[in-house]
């Protein structure tokens, strides 16, 4: 479990604190979505989780390891993997498998173990056929999947994804989304995803809404995604389906606004007749 207690953080050159008094628990095997407008502190929170950013006040503990203690940070980084938006800035090698090996090599593992981890990690993201390719010949979605493999090869427990599909086309977004679900179900990972993409956030169990460095609201994603007002304030458009329900209700129908899937809506509409 990751627990954040009363954590605040101000960048050395920053005027206002980027995070203020954050309290948050991240449980095992859940998908937590983080939403919020630009500059609300989402990326800073992500870096707080893997020990790149250390809170100025308050505490962050990862499985009981406090990130304030320098000796813990190596282990924390291995437990909490961080994926950035731009895949091109995360590659260290011009060969897919060498790139995936970078993390395990840094952990000082034996060559045979590194080999094993690289192969399984590439299989998990269905990129094993591209092991000998240079990344620049891959599509955006494939690149991001290789980056995910690079993190999986370190066998993390938590994976923090900072807008993982922001740079990808619809096809790439779909590929990455599919893998996230699999990682939770099959590998038992906890996933923390920062996103402006509602489709992606639908996969989350819980959502946290950040506003000016503070947690404004946290709730199950079912409840939050149905609230068009919240989503608008968080800079998100609202799901197509929620907008449809909103319009139907304006026209005098009475449809519960927490419906998120088309099939549920159809059922509800049939009941109205």
């Amino acid at each position: 479990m990751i627990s954040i207690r009363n954590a605040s953080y101000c960048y050395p050159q920053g005027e206002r604190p980027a995070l203020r008094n954050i309290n948050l628990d991240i449980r095992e095997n859940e998908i937590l979505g983080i939403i919020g407008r630009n500059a609300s502190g989402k990326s800073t929170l992500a870096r707080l989780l893997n020990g790149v950013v250390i809170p100025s006040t308050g505490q962050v503990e990862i499985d009981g390891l406090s990130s304030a203690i320098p000796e813990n940070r190596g282990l924390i980084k291995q437990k909490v993997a961080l994926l950035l938006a731009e895949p091109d800035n995360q590659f260290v090698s011009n060969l897919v498998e060498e790139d995936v090996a970078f993390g395990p090599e840094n952990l000082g593992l034996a060559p045979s173990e590194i080999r094993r981890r690289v192969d399984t990690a590439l299989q998990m993201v269905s990129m094993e056929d591209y092991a000998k390719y240079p990344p620049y010949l891959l599509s955006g979605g494939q690149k991001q999947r290789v980056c995910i493999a690079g993190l999986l090869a370190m066998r993390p427990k938590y994976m923090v994804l900072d807008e993982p599909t922001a740079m990808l086309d619809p096809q790439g977004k779909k590929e990455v989304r599919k893998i996230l679900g699999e990682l939770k179900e099959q590998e038992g990972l906890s996933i923390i995803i920062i996103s402006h993409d509602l489709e992606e956030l639908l996969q989350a169990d819980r959502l946290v809404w950040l506003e000016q460095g503070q947690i404004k609201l946290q709730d199950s994603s079912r409840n939050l995604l149905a609230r068009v007002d919240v989503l608008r304030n968080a800079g998100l458009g609202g799901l197509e389906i929620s907008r449809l329900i909103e319009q139907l209700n304006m026209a005098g129908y009475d449809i519960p606004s927490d419906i998120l899937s088309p099939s549920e809506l159809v059922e509800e509409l049939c009941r109205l007749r």
Partner: protein
Amino acid sequence: MTGIKIGQYVHGDSFLHSLDPRIKIICCIVIMVSVLINYSWYYLLFHLLLIIMAIKASGLSFRFMSGCLRSIRYLLLVTFVLQIFLTPGEAVLSLGRISISQEGLLIASINLLRLLILFFGSLLLIMTTSPIKLSAGIEFLLLPLNKLNIPVHHFTTILSISFRFIPTLIEEATIIKNAQRSRGAQFDSPNLIVRLKSYMAIIIPLFEASLLRAEELGEAMDSRCYTGHPNQLRMSSLKLMGKDLVLLGFMFLVLGIGISISLGSS
């Protein structure tokens, strides 16, 4: 695989790929040295033959390799032309005050041959050695410098990451160039100043973008537990094999012959 870029590692399982990176680096240096200390035609042609055999043994196509010459065509042309005209000697052809000398023609051809050998030699090295292996090899060879407190590992990491970013930067430069062109930058204006200004409009944003990339890359490497300490345990550890030693012996033999030829002739 299509879309291979010049100077980028191409994966394969050829003889050249299977050699130890340290041996390849040493052989490359030996070739450079022996080509630079020697004027003998036979000796240079022999090296050209070696290079052709190496290309054959690398699995890279001759068409691709000769296509790579395009990137250094101006360098070749300028050195050749300058040496033809600027070397004093017996004139074969005179055009007013300037003349082409016999010596010039000879030296220019020899130097052209040398450049070709150097170019293809190093190209073969970097295109058949994966970046991590290449830097592992360089790191091993520079190990003695560690005793002088020179951080060899940092140096080789920087080197391999620079290689890694070449295709990314080329792509980015193309995007910026197109963006600036659509805003009216003239890259093919007859006016040199206008052209220079247009290119500045690529270089500055490219530089800025590279700094941002570097910052993010640093963060990503940090998140992947990179500490800056050299890790001797890599996925594919370096291992010397019989063929490596045979090749090394052969190259030094060639070098020895080259040295004795150049000593004998001077």
